[in-house]
């Protein structure tokens, strides 16, 4: 255990990120899903800040602040407003039942860890061992998007996946260039807004947010 304290802290935050990903996967309510998403954003911001502090990469401070602003405050607020307007506090209906989803989740985690191990050995950053966790949380969010039937949880899954990707970027290369990061931040913001408008349209057309109505083509 010769690791410096900051790197240990990064490891703990990475573990927390994975824990929150699993919590999102097992969550039944839309409202707590959004709260968990905000927590994940907070962990991500603290993690980015820690990496910035320990490596002296100044631009990471900006991206930590950006994460805090966007993913902890703005996006959860938009989502809260959205579900209030759509009046969707109902329970999430997963396609698979929760224990099976969690079991699949753990298989994904093992897969991601195995995949990341050889890559991590080549990397030289202090955060290299967290790559596996980043990949695992991307896969878990992906699983969440697949197993949820309703539109709002799918969008939250999409946003959580972006969190995972962001974490992967921070942990392998100390973050992407500022332009890319700003671009992505703007992207998910606009994406969420557009998807919010979509929700209203979907509900108007099908009277529900259940996406299985969109699987059939109608030619009229």
């Amino acid at each position: 255990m010769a690791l410096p304290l900051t790197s240990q802290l990064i490891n703990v935050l990475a573990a927390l990120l994975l824990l929150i990903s699993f919590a999102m996967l097992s969550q039944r309510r839309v409202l707590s899903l959004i709260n968990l998403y905000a927590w994940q954003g907070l962990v991500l911001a603290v993690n980015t800040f820690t990496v910035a502090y320990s490596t002296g990469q100044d631009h990471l401070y900006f991206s930590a602040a950006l994460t805090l602003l966007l993913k902890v405050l703005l996006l959860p607020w938009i989502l809260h407003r959205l579900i209030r307007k759509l009046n969707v506090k109902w329970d999430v209906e997963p396609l698979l039942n929760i224990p099976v989803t969690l079991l699949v989740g753990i298989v994904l985690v093992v897969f991601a860890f195995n995949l990341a191990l050889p890559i991590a050995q080549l990397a030289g950053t202090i955060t290299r061992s967290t790559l596996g966790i980043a990949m695992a949380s991307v896969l878990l969010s992906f699983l969440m998007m697949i197993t949820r039937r309703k539109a709002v949880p799918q969008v939250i899954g999409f946003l959580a996946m972006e969190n995972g990707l962001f974490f992967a970027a921070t942990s392998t290369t100390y973050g992407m260039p500022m332009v890319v990061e700003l671009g992505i931040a703007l992207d998910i913001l606009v994406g969420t807004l557009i998807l919010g408008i979509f929700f209203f349209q979907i509900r108007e057309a099908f009277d529900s947010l259940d996406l299985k109505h969109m699987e059939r083509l109608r030619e009229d």
Partner: protein
Amino acid sequence: MNQTAGILFQLGQSLLLVAVAPLWLGWVNQWRAWLQNKRGAGLFQPYRGLAKLFNKEALLAHRASPLFRATPYILFGCMWLAAGIVPVLATSLPYSPAADVIALVGVFALARVFMALAAMDVGTAFGSLGARREMLIAFLAEPALLMVFFTASLISHSTALTTIVETLAHKQFALYPSMAFASVAFLMALLAENARLPVDNPATHLELTMIHEAMVLEYSARHLALIEWASSIKLLTYTVIGIALFLPFGIAQAGDWSALPVAVGALLAKLAVAGPGLALLETLSAKLRIFRAPEFLGTAFLLAVLGMLTHFLLET
């Protein structure tokens, strides 16, 4: 000389745990009452309950076998044994090589098997119903508990509880992400194994929901007192295992008797905080449907496995 001191200390510690267990239960119950805006029965109510039961005449069902009569004593013995293994105040326990963490889980399992057998022995409907439910919960909680112990063992390269605690408490300070997962899993297993609220409600005798209480319905007087005392020892033992694994700071090192007062103070402080914590957790959570319990414990198991996986990824 040192060995005699060790044995005396061992004896004193396990006696202390047995004596203090009802007090700790009273502390938790008192906080639970306060959190629910009730006045509570006082810290010493469990002792009063035990004294009352010991003074009553024991009644047995007509067809009760010797097993039924022996079970309370076996139960009490098992819990006492378990309490003796856990390093509470110091890690120098001459008795602890007798059983490592795996054997500790085995001791709990032994007590549980006898409890279930005794519950079915008399042949009442509630007894076998309770036994069945208890086994359902136990067989799911046990692997989670074992995985938690394995995670701790991987860190310290030993399955002996004293060595684990020694490593965690006295080596260079390090943050273990795997232990974060393990602590959540352990907490869930603790709640399930001790028949606490999300899984079983210890305060109710409602037929449809009770698990542990259904098994002890046929017991009376000193038998019931021993069983209740044993379950309070079990709760305390689980709590001190949790403290020893996840918050071991302040525990006295082997052979260092001068650190003992600090250890006593630290333990009291930790237990004093853990009581309201447990009560708060129980007040905030509603009882799960019995068929949701496997999901709850499945989550605990997954978290423990995740803890092991993160140990391999992050800490090696």
